[in-house]
């Protein structure tokens, strides 16, 4: 049960990453590789600030700004200097590696004894359920803290999703979406598409940095290698969500990204729980993602065949 709660929590934290990647890849059709750098950047900023004694909430918000700045650089490189979108992402990601080392001062910062957002929930749990109390859920003993953290992550992700949904329906948000869909059309309507792309990539990386910041606080340390592989997993979450939901209205796609992220973590947890040769972890993860992608389409096809055969 703690495994289930833990996996859902990580899934929800990484849903912020999926939302960020959804913005750049899906809304702007901008293959943004900055993600792997800005994820660590967010973690680095928060860890350094928290160790310096800054309020963890403020540290997380600073990560949002930091990630936004990194994304802005990528956007400017692409729009103003006409550098290929992939390459501008690669450039900023590479540069961020050094920036991250500078921010942290070394390759790994422990937050084990610092006050993070998640230690607040520890305190909340003590207040409401008593010290070290175990709650029974469906017959499993679960630390009350884990439940509080899960609840917080859920509320946060729901709020952020609603905010995104609302934002992309405002005039500005609609213009952004149109920039990704049909840049020529929206330019004819007098919208500065360059500005839209810069703002969009910045927003995307701001979310990714917050995901990094939260993960660092959750796991209790920031490491310069944290971002490796994140882009791929975030993208996988977005695509799993799309395959499952198979609708393209905005609200549903956002929900899909969140569900995809949680689903993905649960699949990894099952692979781990069943026990396997440690070498095979990535192979099995890839197989699970493949299954998640083809199953919905497969089910739809068989339904169609059944209907036509009637």
């Amino acid at each position: 049960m703690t495994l289930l709660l833990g996996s859902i929590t990580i899934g929800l934290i990484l849903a912020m990453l999926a939302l960020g990647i959804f913005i750049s890849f899906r809304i702007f059709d901008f293959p943004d590789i900055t993600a792997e750098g800005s994820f660590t950047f967010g973690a680095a900023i928060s860890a350094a600030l928290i160790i310096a004694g800054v309020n963890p909430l403020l540290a997380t918000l600073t990560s949002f700004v930091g990630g936004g700045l990194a994304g802005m650089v990528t956007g400017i490189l692409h729009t103003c200097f006409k550098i290929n979108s992939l390459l501008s992402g690669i450039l900023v990601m590479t540069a961020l590696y050094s920036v991250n080392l500078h921010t942290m001062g070394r390759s790994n910062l422990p937050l084990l004894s610092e006050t993070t957002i998640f230690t607040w929930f520890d305190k909340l749990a003590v207040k409401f359920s008593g010290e070290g109390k175990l709650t029974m859920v469906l017959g499993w003993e679960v630390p009350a803290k884990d439940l509080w953290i899960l609840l917080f992550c859920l509320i946060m992700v729901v709020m952020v999703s609603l905010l995104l949904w609302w934002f992309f329906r405002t005039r500005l948000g609609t213009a952004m979406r149109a920039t990704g869909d049909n840049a020529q059309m929206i330019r004819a309507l007098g919208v500065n598409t360059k500005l839209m792309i810069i703002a969009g990539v910045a927003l995307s990386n701001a979310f990714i940095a917050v995901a990094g910041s939260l993960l660092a606080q959750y796991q209790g340390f920031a490491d310069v290698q944290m971002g490796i592989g994140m882009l791929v997993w975030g993208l996988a979450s977005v695509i799993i969500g799309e395959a499952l939901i198979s609708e393209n209205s905005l609200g549903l796609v956002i929900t899909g990204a969140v569900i995809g992220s949680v689903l993905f973590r649960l699949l990894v947890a099952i692979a781990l729980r069943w026990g396997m040769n440690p070498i095979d972890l990535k192979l099995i993860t890839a197989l699970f993602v493949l299954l998640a992608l083809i199953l919905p389409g497969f089910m739809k096809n068989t339904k169609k065949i059944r209907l036509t055969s009637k």
Partner: protein
Amino acid sequence: MKALSGIIKGIVALVIVASILLLSDLQNRSDKKGGTRESASRKMYKLSLIHFVDSPNSEECEQGVRDFLKDNGLVEGKDFTLSVFSAQGDISALNSIAGNVTSQPWDIIIANSTPTIQSLVKKKTKSQIVFTNVGDPIIAGLGKSFTDHIAGVTGVSTMSDFDGMIDLLVSLQPEIKKIGTVYAPAEINSVAYKENLDKAARKRGIELVCAPASNTSEITDAAVSITSKGIGAICQISDNLTASCISSIIKAAESARIPLYGFVTKLMTQGAIAVVARDYHQAGYDAGVMVKMILDGKPPKEIPFQLVTKTNFQVNTTVAAKFKIKMPEGLSKNIKLTN
């Protein structure tokens, strides 16, 4: 309506997957107390080993743990089970593994490398943890000192053996008064290593001359500057910056005709006179010793962190002859001579 069906499909998928996970977790359901209290004589220990990355160092560590258990007459499958996990370098997978492992009852969890132990200590677990292959457990946040550390955790640090290095240095060059090193102020490991080397040197009345370098282009200047300060040897600490351009330091040492000592085995082929390098197989073996102590009933809190007990000493006799350094008579047998 059609819109809702998409979400419902997603939620159904989530519920199905979550139930599969819960079903495979059934044996952990609250009656866990029964299982752990078997008769002490025929108990099968449940051990778990977690790697963060697959590297030669981690593999040697794992082999070290296995060899210790074997040498102590413990047979896998009869006396213990060892479940190995590897995050394959992916930090989110590492978190999933930490969650998975800590949700099950183990006798001992062995954590290989710094991120692994850090992701474990944050989780609430009844299992006791032994780490290995961690450079500096104090910097990693695992305790205030080697004896005053987090409860439930103990382990092996692979920090360089500075005293051993100075001993070797003195036995090869008894008249040495000054040694030098280049270090990177931006890397906290590097600063700590420099200070530890300084401490070890001062114990034997040797002065350490050091020069800082903040990027690769400054290394040559820094190395040349220390060679001009009358040092008898360069004793280069290992950090990321100097490791990446060690050849500049070697060149500076060669042109000033000063022998170079190092802490990485690879340096032996690059012209170093001697290296004092940590043995990662031993790091695993030492962790095995701690595992045994804990299995025998000693709480980890009472077991201080320790350095790897075995270090590989290597001396290159050809290089030594070039500097007219004679091998002393009573050179310890642990020191491997190469040419």
